């Protein structure tokens, strides 16, 4: 009788294990939704990291689903409204699009994992700082961090008699004036993509308002209509567009603007660290230098792309473990250059860098605070209005003194 009972027990246990087996296998699966990157090297690197993680963690399967930008955004919206979706998803940092998903509850706060894995010991502070800007805890882990600064044409600077990089905003304006006097447009932008000219407004705002007021304006806790530095910033934008930007610029895009810059038609361009590769491909890397926009606040202008753990994830621990693996020094060292010029891991060692890449590494190391692009900082509807007001001022259709009031009216009308 006992043996029969034992046999029944063993059979029951075997059946339970068999029934449980698929569940266990399923429990080890995680899905990562990310972009189908334009660089195949990025896609390959991402896949390799997933495969290596699987090899290091037997029984775990990482599925990477890639989509175009718009498809990715749509898929995330669908996922947010259902109980299915990825364990990890790519998005941008900031209160804009990335912030909307967080506000909608799609992102799991990661304070526990930041402490458990000591991610702050590995991450570049400027890149990690975006995880702290939300209410309710730290959100997401950096995927890439992009800094933006002023690239300049050494020859044109020399021709205008500019001997050094400007130390503050007034010196920058003085240099722009020297360039103008020498018949050289100081800077180039492409107006059809709204975010290009926006960059100039963003950095002027930081320079004119300082950290506290800048952030209050971008957080919409200060009034754009009454804050004097906002009006002063729009006035400066007006001055730049009338005097220093290569014209016409409202009808061209950033790519055409880049062509004009490399053709020596303008002396400066406000671009991200990714431009180093583009300049290299254009064949005149050595003709250019780069320096942070001299805002005087010691903060670097930039934005970050993050990977977030979804609240819908059945396996947040494995998702966090994968992210820990992703940002780890050996993995980031091996993938260096695949996703960005520089890594979000501060322990990565850079060797044989091109001078401009080295300059960027120095810039990143010199800054532990950042201020982000307006279109990442504002909610989407305010961003659209911010673009409109900036473009109206830049094209001379709106008086700078009226711009702050126009933006504030829109903000005030939001329900």
């Amino acid at each position, binding site marked *: 009788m006992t043996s029969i009972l034992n046999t029944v027990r063993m059979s029951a246990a075997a059946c339970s294990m068999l029934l449980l087996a698929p569940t266990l296998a399923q429990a080890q699966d995680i899905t990562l939704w990310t972009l189908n990157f334009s660089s195949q090297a990025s896609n390959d690197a991402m896949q390799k990291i997933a495969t290596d993680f699987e090899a290091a963690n037997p029984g775990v399967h990482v599925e990477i689903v890639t989509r175009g930008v718009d498809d990715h955004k749509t898929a995330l919206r669908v996922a947010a409204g259902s109980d299915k979706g990825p364990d990890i998803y790519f998005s941008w940092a900031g209160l804009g699009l990335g912030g909307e998903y967080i506000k909608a509850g799609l992102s799991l706060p990661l304070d526990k994992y930041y402490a458990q894995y000591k991610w702050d010991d590995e991450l570049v502070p400027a890149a990690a700082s975006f995880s702290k800007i939300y209410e309710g805890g730290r959100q997401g882990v950096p995927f890439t961090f992009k800094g933006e600064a002023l690239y300049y044409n050494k020859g044109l600077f020399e021709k205008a008699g500019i001997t050094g990089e400007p130390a503050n905003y007034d010196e920058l304006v003085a240099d722009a004036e020297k360039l103008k006097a020498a018949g050289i447009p100081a800077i180039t932008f492409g107006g059809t993509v*709204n975010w290009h000219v926006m960059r100039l407004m963003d950095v002027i705002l930081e320079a004119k308002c300082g950290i506290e007021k800048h952030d209050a304006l971008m957080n919409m806790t200060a009034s754009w209509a009454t804050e004097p530095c906002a009006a002063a910033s729009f006035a400066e934008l007006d001055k730049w567009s009338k005097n220093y930007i290569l014209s*016409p610029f409202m*009808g061209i895009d950033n790519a055409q603007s880049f062509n004009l810059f490399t053709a020596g038609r303008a002396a400066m361009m406000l671009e991200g660290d990714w431009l180093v590769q583009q300049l290299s491909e254009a064949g005149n890397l050595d003709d250019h230098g780069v320096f942070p926009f001299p805002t005087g606040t010691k903060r670097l202008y930039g934005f970050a792309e993050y990977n977030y753990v979804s609240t819908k994830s059945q396996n947040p621990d494995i998702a966090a473990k994968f992210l820990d693996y992703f940002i780890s020094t050996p993995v980031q060292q091996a993938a260096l250059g695949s996703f960005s010029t520089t890594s979000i891991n501060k322990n990565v060692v850079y060797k044989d860098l091109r001078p401009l890449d080295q300059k960027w590494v120095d810039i990143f190391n010199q800054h532990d605070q950042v201020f982000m692009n307006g279109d990442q900082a504002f909610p989407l509807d305010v961003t*659209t209005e911010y673009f409109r007001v900036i473009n109206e001022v830049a*094209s001379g*259709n709106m008086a700078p003194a009226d711009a702050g009031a*126009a933006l504030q009216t829109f903000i005030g009308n939001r329900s």
Partner: protein
Amino acid sequence: MTPKTLLSDNRMQAALLLGPALIIYAVFALYPMVDVVGLSFQKWNGLDANKAFVGVDNYVSIFTKDPVFWGAFRNTVIWTVLSVIFPPLIGLLLALGLNQPIFGRNSLRAIFYLPVIIAPIAVATMWRWMYDPFFGLFGQLLTQFGLQSWIQDWLGNRDLALYSAFIAHLWQSVGFSMVLFLAGLQGVNKTLIEAARIDGAGRWNVFRYVTFPALKTTITIVLVLSIISSLKAFDIVYGLTGGGPAQSTQMLALWAFTQSMQIFDFGRGSAISVVLLAITLAVVVPYLRWTQKREEIEQ
């Protein structure tokens, strides 16, 4: 009734033939249309599980608080007026010319029709490069003729951008009107034309008293189609200017898309779509009824 006799019934045959199309139409056209009307009374960002009913707030918002809506409305009206005048007029002139027995007539017809089959977004890309103030075709041509001062920021100047975009649209759409008029011209009674000529009518009078009246139905079709396509103008403007500079070339259809798919305010986007639908119906339905009645009287 056996299946055989059932199938031999004309009404049943019609129902069977129309059924699949009606189902598809209901699912992909009627349902979304009704859904959009419902969404226009709700607030939804595409993320929340629940859509909050907000009454007419979205309409109040677009009419009184949206700094872009009325500009988009004005641009849509301008675009519609231009679309009703120029593509049909030029299409008619081309059709009249290409209806004559001239050398290379068929090739010319194909050439003028060719832009119609190009995707609007491709047309936009092409024209954007031609309009480039630094490297574009128009700038180069003006430079060659010593007219550098005439070079404009065709797509960046808010006073010009809408009209620059319309010229690209005109280039693309004129072939469509031309083909419809050519088809209409084939239906003009040649005996009447010969009789008019025998009676001493010149080219203008033949056109005025014979050809033009015979083209009235075609003209109606061309005008109605022009109005409908212009009210929903989207892709060419999206590709050329994206609604800029500073939303100065924004159109209602594009603004509805921007609100829904870029700002993710589906309520306001739907409200704009409903306004656009109402305008379209307000223009097209009375016009169709009027022309229908007139044709009935003439018959």
